[in-house]
């Protein structure tokens, strides 16, 4: 089959996203299910947009996250759907969330730099939990004595929080601006370098 009708294409793309083991990108669709079908990027994008619209009123939605497209349940259904599982969704401590936020906003960052901002030591347990969840990874080492590891967030982190890009995180400008408003007439300059 070298040509495929729009109807068939939509069914194929829809089924592929549903059965794939992880979010699937347009590129991977082309390399796998659409191989030999001669579907242009533009046509594929139009089909994906159509699917997104088709599912808008449904219980599951087509979402684009960092590593590709996936279907996920409507946010508003969570209280009922969570009854399908015995355990509650994991909750995360402030220490873990602050560490994760620092890595997300200031990456790449060393453990020492995280500790400087938080004013306390970062437990190995937290770094381990974040790594095991696949949310952070070591992307290099800082060329200072001890060559500490530099941490960054992963696509899996963005996927978990349903984000497409790092810049979809709640804007850092928001709290930089907030900080600016409390500076009394130029006496103390916000160290903007550090905030970015």
């Amino acid at each position: 089959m070298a040509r495929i009708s729009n109807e068939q294409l939509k069914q194929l793309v829809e089924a592929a996203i549903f059965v794939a083991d992880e979010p699937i990108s347009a590129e991977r669709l082309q390399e796998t299910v659409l191989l030999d079908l001669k579907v242009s990027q533009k046509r594929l994008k139009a089909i994906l947009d159509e699917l997104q619209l088709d599912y808008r009123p449904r219980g599951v939605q087509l979402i684009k996250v960092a590593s590709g497209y996936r279907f996920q349940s409507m946010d508003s259904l969570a209280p009922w759907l969570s009854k399908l599982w015995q355990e509650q969704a994991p909750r995360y401590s402030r220490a873990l969330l602050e560490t994760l936020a620092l890595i997300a906003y200031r990456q790449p960052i060393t453990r020492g730099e995280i500790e400087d901002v938080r004013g306390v030591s970062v437990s190995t347990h937290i770094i381990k939990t974040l790594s095991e969840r696949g949310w952070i990874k070591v992307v290099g080492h800082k060329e200072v004595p001890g060559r500490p590891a530099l941490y960054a967030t992963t696509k899996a982190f963005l996927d978990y929080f349903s984000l497409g890009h790092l810049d979809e995180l709640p804007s850092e400008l928001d709290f930089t601006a907030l900080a600016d408003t409390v500076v009394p007439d130029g006496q103390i300059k916000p160290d903007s370098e550090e905030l970015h």
Partner: protein
Amino acid sequence: MSEPQDTQNDNLTRAPVQQPLPLAFVHGEAFLERPEDLYIPPDALEVILESFEGPLDLLLYLIRKQKFDIASLPVLQITRQYMEYVEVMKDLKLELAGEYLLMAAILAEIKSRVLLPKRADAPEDEEDPRAELIRRLREYEAIKQAAQELDSLPRQERDFFLAAAQTSENCQPIRILPTVTLQELVLSFQDVLTRAAAFEHHHIKREALSTRERMSAILERLEGEAQFVAFQALFTVEEGRAGVVVTFLAVLELVKESLIELVQAAPYTQIHVKACQPLEDAYGTDLE
């Protein structure tokens, strides 16, 4: 103070600002102003104190509680309150992290610099002694807020779940089989011949491949035929003279190798062909 475990203390670690409800009755201001007048079960107090994420968090709490501006950092007041806390921690023999004591020293140092009368010859642009601490407090507050926002983002397993469908039963993973080139095949055969030549007793002679192919074809044709097949049925007239010769040679070769048997009832009558039958159970069962 070591950081609290991630999961168990979760409600508690958020307590002071985020979720006032569960602990509202214990971390009131009264306790902070006059700790000696207010009975707080030691366990609860410990929980409150452990809920701070460090000296910056505690300072921020003290500032926000009294609705001060971070930038105006009232060092005298805040230092006094901070020290009270640290004393309580010491009294309770909490494992007091070095960071809290270090902060106490920093506050004391700033306090002394603020209290010192400004010297007449001091340079105009001398930095505010509080500047560095204020910068750190604001930076910490920004991250604390970012963490809260992160926590409120829609999150897998809590706010949404992944939707998946099964593949239909007829959907099997595709295995990409290795490619083989004709050249590889021919070279392999040549390797075998070269090696076989080293053994004297093998004489691999050239044979017309078309004959061997036809031998396979005839065997296949006869396989499963219980009855004799007419000799002529093996020939295809359309193939012409060359085809007939190849078939004939193949039949002779097969007879020679005892793979087929030919039967002719009487001279000039129909010749029949049949694959050789196993002698009943003479050779045991078929190993293949």
